[in-house]
């Protein structure tokens, strides 16, 4: 069960972790309203652009359904959601937000079913990687005309790469609520035990290899570095590793594989050396998402490639402690894989509804210092603060947000300094990601389970198969 969604099965509702107390709408209100739309407009795409660009008229009477409201078990998050709806209604008293508690927020089979049956709520939660599937089912409104500096004031400081993922042919189909970039997750106690400095985590693959060897030397079934090789997760991580070294999986024109080169072989040879020469990757392979987290939470694994909220997962589900972990940028630092989640707006709803949806998403998820970015409030509610995620701000907004996060942090943020101080350019997944990951999974499982694997031959075969996938569209 490994759609892109399943790769990060717990990447959910984290964005609901915090909410503002204050007048997040000041900026919006300042823009004034020139809308004369009476709410009749049928289908977002047909509305004229100037019309659409104006923020929602506070007088407009709109009812919005939206999924991924925090479940009852997450009391603090749910309370914040409700408070936010109230605050939102102070500005827009005529907008009714009908939250649906979908827990978890997105379950791939349910998501597929929902799109097929066109039963998604007005505003629906997706992963970045779901865009193609949504478009195939004609499920989302093109919101390009609705999103601008007036409707989303912080737009200019948002990482353009993040918005790009939600675009197809220049049209925007969603607004992000959280994102992550992949880095190197380290187990600080194991680093110390092995005589390594956890404040100076490895920055290159040779350094990773050396550190892994020392950690594995602790014995008692401890592995230095862990890697996936099943359920398409291996291909996913091979992609991240390639990005880290400045490489690519698919060439710029999107017609051929780009990983069958000296760099690709170096990646595989290094893994092979760690697995077989150093024996620093443990003996159990064919692992997938969840397995490495379990090993690390049990104190048996030193490092693996991960997103910051893997730590949250380990803390919430596996009894781990935040202070035991640190993050470093992905080895190589040339670029890294990113991902995240967003809200899209159902196709065919009225333009007032679309405007209300954009206003609500902006209010709750895209306002620096407010909404989910009011870190002081999150801390006051006893929720964790300090993970470098979401991370879609740039420029002045980013520095301000980083400062606010550090000021309210509930965990030693210094542990993530290596990661946050040197943000690595995020890149999205290749086209036909899952099909390509399946091919690359084979490569990863070969290297990690077969001592005599011929890395050159493996890459050659994989290249031909990926070329085929790309030609076979």
């Amino acid at each position: 069960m490994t759609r892109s969604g399943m790769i990060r099965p717990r990447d959910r509702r984290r964005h609901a972790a915090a909410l503002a107390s204050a007048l997040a709408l000041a900026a919006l209100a300042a823009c004034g309203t020139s809308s004369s739309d009476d709410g009749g407009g049928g289908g977002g795409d047909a509305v004229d652009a100037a019309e659409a660009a104006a923020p929602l008229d506070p007088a407009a009477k709109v009812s919005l359904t939206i999924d991924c409201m925090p479940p009852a078990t997450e009391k603090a998050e749910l309370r914040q959601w409700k408070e936010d709806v109230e605050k939102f209604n102070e500005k827009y008293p005529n907008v009714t937000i009908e939250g649906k508690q979908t827990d978890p927020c997105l379950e791939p089979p349910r998501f597929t079913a929902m799109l097929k049956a066109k039963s998604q709520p007005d505003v629906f939660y997706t992963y970045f990687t779901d865009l193609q599937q949504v478009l195939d089912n004609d499920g989302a409104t093109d919101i390009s005309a609705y999103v601008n500096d007036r409707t989303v004031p912080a737009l200019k400081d948002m990482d353009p790469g993040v918005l790009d993922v939600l675009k197809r042919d220049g049209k925007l189909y969603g607004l992000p609520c959280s994102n992550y970039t992949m880095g190197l997750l380290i187990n600080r106690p194991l680093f110390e035990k092995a005589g390594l400095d956890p404040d100076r985590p490895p920055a290159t693959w040779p350094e990773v290899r050396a550190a892994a060897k020392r950690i594995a030397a602790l014995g008692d079934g401890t592995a230095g570095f862990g890697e996936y090789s099943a359920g398409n997760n291996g291909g996913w991580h091979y992609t991240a590793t390639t990005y880290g070294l400045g490489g690519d999986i698919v060439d710029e024109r999107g017609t051929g594989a780009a990983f069958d080169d000296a760099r690709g072989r170096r990646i595989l040879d290094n893994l092979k050396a760690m697995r077989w020469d150093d024996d620093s990757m443990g003996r159990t392979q064919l692992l997938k998402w969840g397995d490495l987290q379990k090993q690390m939470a049990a104190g048996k694994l030193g490092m693996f490639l991960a997103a910051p909220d893997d730590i949250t997962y380990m803390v919430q589900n596996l009894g781990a402690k935040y202070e035991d972990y640190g993050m470093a940028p992905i080895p190589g630092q040339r670029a890294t894989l990113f991902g995240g989640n967003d809200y899209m707006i159902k196709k065919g709803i009225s333009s007032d509804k679309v405007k209300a949806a954009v206003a609500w998403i902006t209010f709750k998820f895209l306002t620096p210092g407010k909404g989910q970015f009011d870190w002081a409030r999150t801390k006051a509610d006893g929720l964790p603060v300090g993970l470098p995620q979401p991370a879609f701000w740039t420029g002045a907004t980013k520095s301000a947000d980083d400062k606010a996060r550090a000021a309210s942090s509930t965990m030693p943020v210094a542990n993530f300094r290596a990661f946050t101080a040197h943000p690595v350019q995020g890149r999205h997944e290749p086209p036909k990601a899952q099909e390509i990951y399946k091919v690359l999974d084979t490569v990863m499982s070969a290297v990690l389970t077969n001592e005599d694997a011929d890395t050159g031959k493996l890459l050659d075969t994989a290249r031909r198969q990926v070329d085929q996938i790309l030609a076979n569209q």
Partner: protein
Amino acid sequence: MSAPVLAERQPPPSAPAAPAPRSPRDRAAFRQALRRNLTAHGFLIGAVLCFSFFSWYPMVREFFLAFEKRENGATVWAGWSNFTYIFNDPAFWQAWRNTLLFTGLALLLGFAVPFVVALVLNEFRHGRGYLRLLVYLPVMLPPVASVLLFKYFYDPGYGLFNRVLGAVGLPEQQWLQSTDTAMLSVVIAATWMNMGGATLIYLAALQGVPGEQYEAAELDGAGILRKIWHVTIPQTRLVLSLMLLMQIIATTQVFVEPFLLTGGAGPEGATLTVVQLIYQYAFTFNNYGSAAALGLVLLVLLAAFSAAYVRLSRASEE
């Protein structure tokens, strides 16, 4: 598991549609037949509706799906493109090789082991109920439990199997993590999980072997193996050949065991089976057309195989 019996002699329907009634007597008979038919169909309708929606309609749909694809939110005619897609997928041939390997190994183990076990159990005059219970025990476990147990046993690091091998001085194995042994490991687990049903059926069949034939064979000086070859097997042939067919059809469709044991593909795709691939097409790539096309290929091959098998076994009986 349990083998359905395919040939069934049907009595002719006793209520053919009545010809147009002429006399009052005819009309009364017609009315009665009509009422009887209405009642009969009333009893039938629930099941027929379920079959229509969840069996017959999907069968038809499967065929159409294979020739359709999604494009910009609409369903369009795809011609043979779903088929060219699967034939061009390198995983297609690998999946078929793996499935054949699985079927072959499953016949060696899954077909032979239950028969031998049944032969042995049938000789015991004591504790038969207990042994029979043991063999059938795994069949009653939730498959997730059995499979996860084997996953622990197979682990090359802390797994029980390697510890046992190590304790008796044999070289440790990589089990699921080597292209050489992955499929075999899956078959061993699958055999353990599923052999109970076949064993019980063989045991029942063995009860039907007439004892005099053994005696006659003994008079000819036959040993145990010759008795098995000349008496037991011919006498249980019908069940054996039916079970063989059922087993081949079932093992070609193996899904749960490799899916849970190796996450689907296994080392270098060594445990990727045809049904895994159907699953991947449909639920990982959202490519229902190709999934349906591969399903049709599987259907056609299995149907052709079954037909050939039935013909051959008929021919050899004559």
